[in-house]
């Protein structure tokens, strides 16, 4: 395989793995890596093989750019889907990422749960609430089947604003936590 073919193959693979980026960003990266390969290969004692080996596989190089973009976008996003996707990617890279993913899933589930309970009270008031029996909470939330007739409901319609406030607060805190974690991870993601 000639040196030109090797360079072309590497850049084609790089371009392919950079496909989530815009064409302009992708071509700028490919152009820069092309210049790096040619400059490095021109140095005394260097060869295209050794230069490509030092750059690492095109897929791994592209992954670093893609991760950077994903985390950059997510750290400015409010969308749970985007933030969860970035957390998932982070979880594949570090223990810190696994912790962030765990907190994200936990936070979003709880936040959404509070909101669902609040909305459920408006739709099915008899099946939603906090039931107390003998001074102890026996059931809390929204239920398809009724709870024990011995228990009585204590919150009434207050569960709607309380659920919405608790849900919004949990969702906001989860969003803030993920975005902060992504910014921190961005500082740590560069590898030697």
């Amino acid at each position, binding site marked *: 395989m000639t040196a030109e073919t090797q360079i072309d193959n590497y850049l084609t693979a790089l371009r392919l793995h950079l496909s989530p980026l815009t064409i302009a960003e992708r071509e700028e990266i490919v152009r*820069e890596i092309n210049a790096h390969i040619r400059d490095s290969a021109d140095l005394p004692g260097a060869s295209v093989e050794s230069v490509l080996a030092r750059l690492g596989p095109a897929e791994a190089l592209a992954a*670093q*750019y893609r991760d950077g973009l994903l985390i950059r976008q997510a750290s400015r996003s409010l969308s749970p889907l985007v933030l969860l996707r970035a957390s998932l990617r982070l979880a594949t890279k570090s223990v810190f990422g696994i912790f962030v993913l765990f907190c994200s899933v936990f936070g979003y589930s709880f936040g959404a749960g509070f909101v669902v309970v609040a909305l459920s009270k408006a739709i099915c008031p008899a099946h939603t609430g906090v039931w107390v029996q003998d001074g102890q909470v026996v059931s809390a939330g929204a239920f398809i089947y009724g709870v024990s007739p011995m228990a009585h409901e204590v919150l009434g319609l207050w569960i709607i604003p309380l659920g919405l406030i608790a849900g919004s607060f949990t969702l906001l805190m989860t969003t803030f936590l993920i975005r902060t974690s992504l910014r921190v991870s961005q500082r740590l993601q560069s590898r*030697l």
Partner: protein
Amino acid sequence: MAIKRAQPAQDDQPDRWEAQLRKGALEMAALASLWQGRLYGLEIIRFLESHSQLALAEGTIYPILNRLKAEGLLTSEWVEADAGHPRKYYSLTASGRQRLRQMAEAWTNFSGGLSRLLEPVLDTKENRQ
């Protein structure tokens, strides 16, 4: 058996710790290489190799430069060269210079404090040798 299996992991710890330390400093080092003026990617790699002990995996620096540029700390321009292809030169922006100054101050304070803390450790080591 358990001791034998645990031993290599312990030996590996200082290397991993050092790699983490270098990793944390890389962003600051990349910015610092541009303090005197613009450089292109390969020049930054060579600069870091010659002025510090940061031997880079070459594919690492480009995504970092890309990210620093996206954060507005660097700016870039393509310049035609005698080599027959243009090169992408990076320069620090005003906010890049400001961030680097903050990093340099934090780094100097931090490393100064740690050096004082480690003085007795190094003295003991020298005395033993």
